[in-house]
């Protein structure tokens, strides 16, 4: 006979530690994946952007103005066929669109929008590439610099955030599912094994003590100390107590019987 309560609590403690450990490992795995994915994806677009920047700056270094480089339009349209690119566009320093991979958008006045975006991200005068967020997209903004080291405009590569966020979401689902399966499986094993261990190693001690107390309560006196195999601490304290309680109950019951006093509730 054993009781779930202690082994259940013990199992609960082990399961809590299991959950904590799996959580930390899963977080670690996710953060590393997210970091690597971000690096791989952005470096891909940076390569493309750098290539285009080289082509455009070659034209600038020939002495042409940014708006005069008509071949850029064709190059932007061609490059947008690359995977995962929304748009490519070139603006001047005031944010006016000069070229756009979607020619229909050239008429749109995005000046205010870009200006606000750039200002809020402190990149109006930046001389190196930077990635900023714009609604559901990332914008890789690369400065275009002429051979006098003057920034003349920006090349903006727009790609959807889903390129990064979708695999991240899928990884979260993957990890949650594996976490759940391993956690549930592990918890079941913990509960079963702990119950077995507890029943085998601990429940005996407590059962022995319980059984030794029952005759005292029932009024069945024993002359000898009970034979119990428990830890020395328990034995050395239990035996003197048992003797004392036995002696008191025997004497009190005997005297009560002599005086014809009604029996105890335990009789």
């Amino acid at each position: 006979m054993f009781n779930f309560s202690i082994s259940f609590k013990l199992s609960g403690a082990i399961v809590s530690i299991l959950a904590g450990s799996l959580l930390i490992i899963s977080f670690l795995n996710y953060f590393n994946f997210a970091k690597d994915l971000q690096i791989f994806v952005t470096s891909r677009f940076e390569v493309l952007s750098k290539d285009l920047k080289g082509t455009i700056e070659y034209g600038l270094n020939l002495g042409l103005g940014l708006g005069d480089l008509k071949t850029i339009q064709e190059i932007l349209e061609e490059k947008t066929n690359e995977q995962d690119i929304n748009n490519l566009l070139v603006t001047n320093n005031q944010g006016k669109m000069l070229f756009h991979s979607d020619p229909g958008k050239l008429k749109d006045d995005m000046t205010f929008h870009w200006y606000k975006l750039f200002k809020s991200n402190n990149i109006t005068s930046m001389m190196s590439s930077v990635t900023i967020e714009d609604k559901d997209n990332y914008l890789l903004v690369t400065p275009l610099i002429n051979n006098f080291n003057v920034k003349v405009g920006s090349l903006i590569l727009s790609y959807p955030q889903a390129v990064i966020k979708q695999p991240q979401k899928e990884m979260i689902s993957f990890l949650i599912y594996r976490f759940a399966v391993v956690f549930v499986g592990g918890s079941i094993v913990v509960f079963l094994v702990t119950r077995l261990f507890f029943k085998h190693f601990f429940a005996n001690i407590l059962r022995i003590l319980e059984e030794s107390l029952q005759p005292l309560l029932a009024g069945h006196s024993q002359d000898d100390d009970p034979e119990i195999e428990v830890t020395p601490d328990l034995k050395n304290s239990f035996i003197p107590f048992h003797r004392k309680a036995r002696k008191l109950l025997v004497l009190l019951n005997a005297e009560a019987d002599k005086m014809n006093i009604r029996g105890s509730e335990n009789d």
Partner: protein
Amino acid sequence: MTDSDKQSSKRGRLYIVAFSVFLILAASGLVSFLAMGEFERVLVPELDKKSYSLGTSVQGLIIKSVGYGIPVDKLNGVREYFDTILNENPELKYIALTDKVGEVLFTSSGFPRKEVSAFFRLSQNTENKSVTSGTVDKFFNTSLPIIQEGTLFGFLHLGISKNFVRNRIKEIGYDILTVLLITFLLTFELLLLTFSGLIDGPIKQLVARFKSMGKGRFANTVNVSVKNEFGRIHQQLNLITLEIGRRLQDIEQACSSSNKRLPENIAEIAKDNTIAYPDSIQEIKQERLIEIRGFVFLFFFSAMFPASFLPLYIGELYQPNLPLSKELVLSLPFALYYVFTALAIIVGGPWSEKIGRRKPMIVGALLNLVGYVATAYATDLIMLTLCYSTAAIGFGLVMVSCQGYAVDNSTPDKKASAIAMFWAGFFSGTLCGNGIGGILAERVGYSNVFFIAAFFSLVVAVLMARLISEKKISDDVQEPESFFPNLLILLRNARFLSIAFGLSIPAKIIMTGFIFYLTPKFLALQDVSQSNIGRVIMIYSLMFVFAGPVVSRFFERLVTNFKFTFLFTLLSGGALIWAAWMNNIIGLVIGIAFYAFFRSSCTASSTALILEVCKKEVDAIGAASVIAVASTFERIGNILGPILSGLMIAYFGYQEAIAGYGLITIAGGIFLMLSFFRHWFFFGRKISNNLEGA
């Protein structure tokens, strides 16, 4: 034949702990293994895409050149250009340009000609003028055709190492191994806490109750709130108490109502025992008796989260508005942290003696929480110093009250092991905290690590509030110790002072100044990641937890404490000088490992040495008081460490500072030796006889 239940329950405990550790490690390992497979599946196509993007860029340049009429095998500067691309894109292992039939024309440096060339010849298909991808040997190969005006001139090949993603995954493998080690210790400590709360504590309560009732005290019942075996046994004991009281009451009332004298044997029972009538029996609440080790582990685990990055965090807030060198200014918050910790210990000790251990523990944990949250929001050095010092007060309070609790709740013969339990929890906690802190900082940022640490402090405070009781199991009434009179007594012992100034103070200077202050800054300058900085600092605690106790137990049988302490002190100093001489990351890491190994090995012997040379003082004021005064000297070292580091780095540099610490350690050992020989010389006794307690 069955084993005695004592052996049986010990074995049972061992099996449960071993099983739990194995299961948790296996489960964590399995999740990581599955995740790594998924990483490869997602990240490899990304690499392919990048390879393609790079390839089209290089392809465009080559096509332009061919368009100018340059034959593809006569292009200039191709190798240098390919090498530049490779340097900028570490995942690429080679770039090669071949002619139409696959003969290699140009390659980047380190091109794996043997493995790959044959593949080019066999696989190239002049009919297929599109981009193709495939695996060859250890590489993912992308081939792009060089076509100018419909004519195929050759192929451009880019190769990415298959192991690139695996190698990136390996980096996180170190983090996972660190977490698994920490999980192992965490599981062990928390299971000890659980056993203490669920099994050991209730058994101690049962034993205490049996003892009390065995002495004839049947005046109390216990409020039974749990319905497990322990609850049922307590309920049976309650019934026995009630039955005895009721029987006595019945007999006394019967005698009183019939005007008879109480029988002699019954009168004797009433006189020799404490029996209460059922109406007068007092119900007392069960007190929980829980080992303090688990709480110590949890608290110091979180308190050590910032250890691996704090100097760097402080550096970010630095503003040059004080007329002191930058390094010295940056060391001041550290030094003040240890000042406030020491003050909290000195004040908190007597306070917790007076009002009990529980309240100071909880107050300490809450102060630590507040301090950490405020530190996360600090915007300048002054604010950071104030906030971090608040956490220091909490740290000191928890430290002194937990130690006091451990001593209060142990019998006189078990006090030493109670203190050892406290330190075991402390070192395990700091070991795990150092490792996890670095990993967390790299992923969530410095400020968020303070929030996580604060959360753990809150958990500890709540657990302490719920689980810790004030009831002492020891009946000894302990008078609060008088610190200053004890200090004055020990100041007259020259050898004690030589140990304090030669060993204890330098050891703590190096712990706070070198391990926790200089090392993170030095490694950060070498672009070592935060996770790796945490792992390096872990080595220090690792040695104290695992190596030191084993080595010291081995050597204590072979040599005297003095010789052992002296020799290992010199060796630990030598390790630091060697690290300085190497002047690189590997040297530093190995130097820390050896320093910590030697230092931890002689910690127990140096404590034993203190007790040996202070025999008279131990008889007068007790061993605990002697050790308490010795600990106070160590705190001087804690405070001096960061300041000394700041000065040495500012005026000499990192390498010289590390060498300086080595020299301080060796000088301390020599000072100790000279002091002991002086004592031998003037008092005419051999050191060995003296130490044997003649």
